[in-house]
């Protein structure tokens, strides 16, 4: 089966601009998670979708972040406006059963 796909792999934007990250989960995986790692910190949970519904968004840092999963397939994570502290690597993972998780390769976001 195809893995979890994320794009872009890298993005460099200026402070104040908008960036949209995309994640395509494994087909049939209802659970989709976003995580991020900012420089020097551990990987932290952002939010969890079950199909198109947000199950848990307790990790979203502020209202500049907006995640969607229209139709329960791919998901987007928009940052608007981007700030310097948003720089880091954003990972997406999907799971069929919440026991096995498959991660994408991540999107490295640099805000300058």
């Amino acid at each position, binding site marked *: 089966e195809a893995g979890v796909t994320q794009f872009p792999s890298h993005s460099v934007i200026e402070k104040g601009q908008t960036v949209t990250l995309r994640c395509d989960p494994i087909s049939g995986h209802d659970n989709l998670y976003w*995580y991020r790692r900012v420089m020097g910190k551990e990987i*932290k949970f952002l939010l969890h979708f079950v199909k198109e519904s947000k199950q848990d968004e307790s990790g979203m840092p502020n209202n500049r972040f907006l995640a969607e999963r229209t139709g329960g397939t791919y998901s987007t994570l928009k940052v608007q406006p981007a700030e310097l502290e948003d720089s880091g690597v954003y990972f997406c*993972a999907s799971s069929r059963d919440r026991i096995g998780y498959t991660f994408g390769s991540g999107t490295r976001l640099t805000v300058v």
Partner: protein
Amino acid sequence: AQSVTQLDSHVSVSEGTPVLLRCNYSSSYSPSLFWYVQHPNKGLQLLLKYTSAATLVKGINGFEAEFKKSETSFHLTKPSAHMSDAAEYFCVVSGLRNQGGKLIFGQGTELSVKP
């Protein structure tokens, strides 16, 4: 609440010598535990997972980990390091499945392998 602590931020070994990456967890219930590896410029790859079956878990590339409830530990070992093992390793605990199953990551351990 669940948490995980990786006791070493960096470990350096010589090729052919054993690897030990230490991880302690805290959980109010019987946890699911994982080790993931990230090679430079790559994604997170699952090495192995413990889900309340055998306490000694074998993973890919010769790695294994032992779940020790009495010590709340889940250390990762490999008998003989290879140069290709150089990467960052993450110990991870999973939240309850019926509460979403989100993963809680340790801080990561950078493994260096010297020739």
